[in-house]
């Protein structure tokens, strides 16, 4: 058996990103869209760690820390906004959130 190469990791990262993006486009629920966004963030961290490991530089690993911090802050604010939206409108389906239309 051969060891996995950088290409394998980048492929997994790209596939994960694509699945997350697919989720953002496909789902009609704001929470599910948000989960797809998180999936995309995780995919990008996997790519960073793989590149960092195969090139022997630590910078990619350090960037992952910042990405995790931003993701945590984003989740807190985003979920607070969703809860506020639900209180105001009584729904989190994107089809029904069209107050800015017309």
């Amino acid at each position, binding site marked *: *058996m*051969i*060891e*996995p*190469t*950088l*290409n*394998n*990791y*980048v*492929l*997994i990262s790209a*596939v*994960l990103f*694509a*699945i*997350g993006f697919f*989720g953002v*486009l*496909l*789902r*009609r*629920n704001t*929470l*599910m869209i*948000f*989960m797809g966004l*998180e*999936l995309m963030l*995780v995919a990008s*961290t*996997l790519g960073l*760690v*793989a590149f*960092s*490991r195969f090139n*022997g530089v*630590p*910078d990619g*690993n*350090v960037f*992952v*820390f*910042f990405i*995790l*911090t*931003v*993701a*945590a*802050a*984003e*989740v*807190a*604010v985003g*979920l*607070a906004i969703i*809860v*506020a939206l639900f*209180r105001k409108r009584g729904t989190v*389906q994107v089809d029904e959130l069209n107050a800015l239309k017309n």
Partner: protein
Amino acid sequence: MGSLLFNFFALLTVICAVGVVVNKNAVNAAMCFLLSLVGVAGLFVLLDAYLLAFVLLLVYAGAVVALFLFIIMLLDVQSGGKAKLRGITAGAAAISAAVLALGVLTIVRAPQTETALAEVEPVGASLKLYAYQLFTTYLLPVQIMGFLLLIAMLGVIVISKKIEAREDVK
């Protein structure tokens, strides 16, 4: 051995990610997301980034997924129906899927990199190096991150307090 573990974790990650996207039940989707994160953490361990694997599980599985589950139960979300497919949407989806498949094929077909994991020193394995980097090269981003977290915390408090205060006034 490494290849076997890589295949296992990669399959776990991708299958559970698909489960997140296609699952009708929001709670099941969150659980799939959790399993997918475990797979990514396993891949991190295979890449010798032990600390990052630990932090990923701590932050994502411990905080983010728990928060998601709280909100799902709080809002009692119904499963969103399928979107109606219109002509222009279908066309755009077909084109973007083709471009995406092209990109993935390019990655698969690209000449394999010669470097094996054993040749490169695992820089992510030592805790000391993270600390050195964070307190020298990346000192300013660390400060900015601290500020960002403070702003996010204040923002969340303001967002969740405001409406209640208004209702009190009414």
